């Protein structure tokens, strides 16, 4: 193909890419001469160049479009939805022609007569109207267009600028709300386009050239890494200096070249205004699309992969999420629905939120569809919470679509969206509130090509784990601080009062199954034959999973290469790479591991997904039997350790069973009188801790650890059972840990420590506990009560503010951060904005103590932060905070 044509095609498709958005904006602001001017120029240039390059078909189409656009210039009142639709059709035709030209180098035999005729007709109608002097607001022009009167009037001279018309229709009411201008980020697409056109400081480089540059840089990085290893073993000062420089330059070169791959997210958004516009015309809905943070950049490879999923989600929001005008009015909402796209950086990731203020996901319909498609039985559905049911939209086979097309995104199910996002190491989450709207959150890495990875060893083989997934490394050795315990057959690691589920890489990948390594490995878990190993705490979404490996080596910058075709079906690898020493290793995919290990069927965010019904949060539970053989459960987060105590070590003191445990006496309590400690063998005990104090709960047998979404039927008679829930398909009693702890502390510690600990002269401090999860409240308040507080519970920020408004005084506030509706930050801001609580110290509870959260929390007015699982720490912090408060007062 000749260079001139090629350049024309590249330029034309670039300008066309921006045209959709511009046209939609024009429809909102028909009197904006600047937008119209830039659209007009695109058509004009295409038309002109076509004549030069001898492309008659393209020229004709562009010409007809230009004619219609010039009527707009004369009379902005002619910018009707019909006319804009027609121009958009024209843009599509041009795009198709250019697409075909790019492929074959020749114009296709498409017939555009109908389109051209329509355009001409519209031009004629418009001219007739302009002649009639009708400069009506677009809203009425819409209906009047075909029936324009033919009264002759002075038409605007051909060369007159458009301002006159612009002024005349400045009061025109556009069919849709035009606050795109007011919203700074909304027009970033158009803005960026103009910037590029104006600056002339950029040059066009073919993607192939860039790709080969990147490959070369990747090779260079590998060679550098190899040299690095050589240089470590040699001790030559001069060589080391030169090498240092080479190394630094390589890094800079790598960064520079990677930058050329970066593109603003808005390039993936460019088509969305058009899509939303077409859908709103089609469905008669009023939809406003807001786009924020479009300037955030990410790798073009990733951008390509999320373009279709994004389009699909926006289409879904417009199609299914936003209600019709009538419905919205009836629901007391503004007629115009809003879809908001928001992109921002967080760590090495970019987060894109797609939010609509529509009706939210229709649980009943999803339920029907699940049954219809046989994805679950009615019995199974019965036990699922709404949030779990919503997650079904991500399941394969849920979507009605039979075929998958990537071009339009139409017909692509949410399962494809999810798998596309996960393919690039991303996570997608969903929050939906009935009547309020749905928000999808997509979190994706910035780049795929070169990542920092941790190299680990298992059964003599090495693997890489992307550093971004690794939140912590734990060394497990005899006599060390950490050890792995078995619950039934599931290994868990107790880490800072939390039990972490573990997966053995050796078992998972069936490593070391060769005869030589078999001798010791008769057990279920090969790793347990080693007594010195590492646990990699991997973060998947907001969940953690421990991966057991034998050794941990180094971190290395690795160049991610795709896995060979025949190996792609293995779910545990996200890529493969070459190490500095030249050897090939596989890159582990923690997402895949978690999913296959059965811990993360649906990616979830514990806090974000817990919507209005706090009881339905997912919790890890320890299931055990005790006394009457019925199944009982306690949340894993409350259990300090699981112990097997030698029955012979159990003593009796003060008529109570006790055992010496870690230098202290630990009382043993039973759930019922008939459940007595064993007289011989091993006694399984759940150990609960409160500061230095520990209590052991005698159980018959630990059955399992399950993760489930709790649907608890509460009963409030305080006999030690909080309520019951169906867990794993069986009725299970939820044990009220607080009840037994109170019993133990009152009867046992109460005598010794009570007098000293509690200052009788003081009134009890009043503590407000705010959390969106009723279950958590019920678990926490007895504990805080034991520590000497009068606890008031509030289910969420709104409820807490109600208490405030009712004039209730409190001494300290402990609040969750992640709550639906008013979250912790908003709540803290509300508290500190004045009123009776403005001086009350606030402690934030969060399961995600990131630096960013801390910063935000401090700004919002939180005094201290405590990780949600740290009960002991909370008591300590409370004491400290109240002490300071007391001193200050």
């Amino acid at each position: 193909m000749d260079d001139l044509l090629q350049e024309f095609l590249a330029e034309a498709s670039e300008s066309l890419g921006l045209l959709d958005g511009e046209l939609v904006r024009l429809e909102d602001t028909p009197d904006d001469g600047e937008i119209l001017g830039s659209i007009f120029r695109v058509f004009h240039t295409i038309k002109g160049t076509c004549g030069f390059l001898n492309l008659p078909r393209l020229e004709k189409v562009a010409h007809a479009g230009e004619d219609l656009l010039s009527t707009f210039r004369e009379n902005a009142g002619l910018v009707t939805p019909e006319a804009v639709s027609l121009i958009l059709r024209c843009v599509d035709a041009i795009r198709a022609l250019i697409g075909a030209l790019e492929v074959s180098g020749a114009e296709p035999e498409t017939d555009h007569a109908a389109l051209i005729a329509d355009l001409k007709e519209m031009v004629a109608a418009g001219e007739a109207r302009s002649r009639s002097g009708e400069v009506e607001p677009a809203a009425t022009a819409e209906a009047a267009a075909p029936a324009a009167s033919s009264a002759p009037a002075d038409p605007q001279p051909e060369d007159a600028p458009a301002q006159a018309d612009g002024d005349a229709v400045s009061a025109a009411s556009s069919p849709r709300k035009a606050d795109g201008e007011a919203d700074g980020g909304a027009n970033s697409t158009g803005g960026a386009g103009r910037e590029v056109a104006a600056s002339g400081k950029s040059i066009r480089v073919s993607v192939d050239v860039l790709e080969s540059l990147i490959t070369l840089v990747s090779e260079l990085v590998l060679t550098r890494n190899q040299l690095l290893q050589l240089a470590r073993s040699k001790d030559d000062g001069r060589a080391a200096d030169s090498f240092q420089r080479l190394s630094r330059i390589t890094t800079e070169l790598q960064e520079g070249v990677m930058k050329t791959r970066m593109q603003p997210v808005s390039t993936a958004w460019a088509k969305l205004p058009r899509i939303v516009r077409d859908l709103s015309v089609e469905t008669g809905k009023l939809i406003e699309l807001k786009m924020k943070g479009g300037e955030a950049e990410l790798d073009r490879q990733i951008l390509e992969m999320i373009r279709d999923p994004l389009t699909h989600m926006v289409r879904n929001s417009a199609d299914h999420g936003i209600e019709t005008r009538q419905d919205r009015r009836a629901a007391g909402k503004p007629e115009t629905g809003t879809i908001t796209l928001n992109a921002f950086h967080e760590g090495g990731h970019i987060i894109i939120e797609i939010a609509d203020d529509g009706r939210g996901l229709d649980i009943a319909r999803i339920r029907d569809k699940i049954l219809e498609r046989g994805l679950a039985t009615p019995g199974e559905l019965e036990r699922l919470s709404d949030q779990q049911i919503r997650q079904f939209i991500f399941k394969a086979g849920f979507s009605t679509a039979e075929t998958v097309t990537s071009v339009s995104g139409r017909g692509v199910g949410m399962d494809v969206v999810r798998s596309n996002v996960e393919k690039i190491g991303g996570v997608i989450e969903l929050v939906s509130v009935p009547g309020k709207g749905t928000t999808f959150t997509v979190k994706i890495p910035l780049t795929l090509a070169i990542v920092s990875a941790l190299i680990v060893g298992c059964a003599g083989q090495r693997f890489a784990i992307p550093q971004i997934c690794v939140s912590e490394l734990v060394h497990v050795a005899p006599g060390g601080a950490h050890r792995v315990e078995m619950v039934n057959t599931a290994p868990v690691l107790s880490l800072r009062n939390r039990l972490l589920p573990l997966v053995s890489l050796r078992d998972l990948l069936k490593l070391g199954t060769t005869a030589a390594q078999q001798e010791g490995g008769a057990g279920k878990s090969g790793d347990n034959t080693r007594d010195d190993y590492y646990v990699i705490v991997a973060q998947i979404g907001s969940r953690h999973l421990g991966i057991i490996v034998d050794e941990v080596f180094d971190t290395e910058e690795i160049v991610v290469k795709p896995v060979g075709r025949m190996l792609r079906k293995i779910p545990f690898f996200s890529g493969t790479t070459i190490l500095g020493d030249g050897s090939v290793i596989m890159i582990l995919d923690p997402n895949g591991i978690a999913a296959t290990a059965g811990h993360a069927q649906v990616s979830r965010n514990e806090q974000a997904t817990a919507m209005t019904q706090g009881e339905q949060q997912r919790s890890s539970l320890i299931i055990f039997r005790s006394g009457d053989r019925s199944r009982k459960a306690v949340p894993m987060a409350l259990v300090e350790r699981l112990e097997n105590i030698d029955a012979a070590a159990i003593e009796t003191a003060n008529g109570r069973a006790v055992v010496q445990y870690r230098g202290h006496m630990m009382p043993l309590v039973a759930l019922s009188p008939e459940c007595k400690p064993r007289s011989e063998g091993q006694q399984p005990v759940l150990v609960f801790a409160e500061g230095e104090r520990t209590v052991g709960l005698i159980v018959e047998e630990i059955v399992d650890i399950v993760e489930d979404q709790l649907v608890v039927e509460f009963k409030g008679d305080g006999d030690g059972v909080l309520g019951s829930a169906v867990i794993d398909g069986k009725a299970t009693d939820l044990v009220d840990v607080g009840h037994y702890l109170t019993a133990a502390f009152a009867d046992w510690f109460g005598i010794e420590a009570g007098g000293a600990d509690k200052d009788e002269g003081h009134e009890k401090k009043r503590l407000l506990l705010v959390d969106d999860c009723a279950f958590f409240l019920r678990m926490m308040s007895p504990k805080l009560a034991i520590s000497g507080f009068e606890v008031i519970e509030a289910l969420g920020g709104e409820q807490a503010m109600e208490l405030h408004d009712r004039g209730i005084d409190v001494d300290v506030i402990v609040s969750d951060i992640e709550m639906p509706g008013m979250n912790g930050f908003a709540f803290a801001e509300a508290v500190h904005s004045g009123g009776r609580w403005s001086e009350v110290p606030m402690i934030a509870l969060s399961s995600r103590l990131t630096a960013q959260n801390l910063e935000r929390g401090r700004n919002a007015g939180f005094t201290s932060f405590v990780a949600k699982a740290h009960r002991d720490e909370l008591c300590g912090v409370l004491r400290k905070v109240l002490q300071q408060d007391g001193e200050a007062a």
Partner: protein
Amino acid sequence: MTTSRNSGARTAGFPTLPGTDRGARRDFLTFTVHRQTFGLPLEAVDDVLDNRPLTPVPLAPPEIAGSLNLRGRIITAIDVRRRLGMPAMAPGASHMSIVTEYDGELFNLVVDAVGEVIALSEDRYEENPATLDDRWRDVSAGIYRLESNLMVVLKVGPLLDSIDGAAGAAGTPVGD
């Protein structure tokens, strides 16, 4: 690095019009797998490697011997013995490999030994014998009569196409 080649010649059978072009000669690289001699059209051969260390891939299909680094490219090694249902090589036995490109990806065929490049004329060519084992029929483009034995012309496409990751994902252990 690697040049792409005419894919038709590599995967298609040979020859197109037997009998009309009796004098034509074609170059083959010969190799042996479990005492059987095979030949691969020379234009399909990218490289010949000696005993290279392979990285085993856990859970991979059993026909996959592992992956290796060939000048910065990661390529999948195929255990030809296993693929053809022959007994496995003795542990530690020396082997060689032939690198070939198929469908845009490089593969490394692990064989017992690589022989030589020979030019063969078409009058030595025979169709697959009717009695040929099914497993072989798929991957054989015909037989050449050599001086002392027969040479099977290997078809790379069918050899590789049937190796499917699905079996591996189900958990077939490697190297058992």
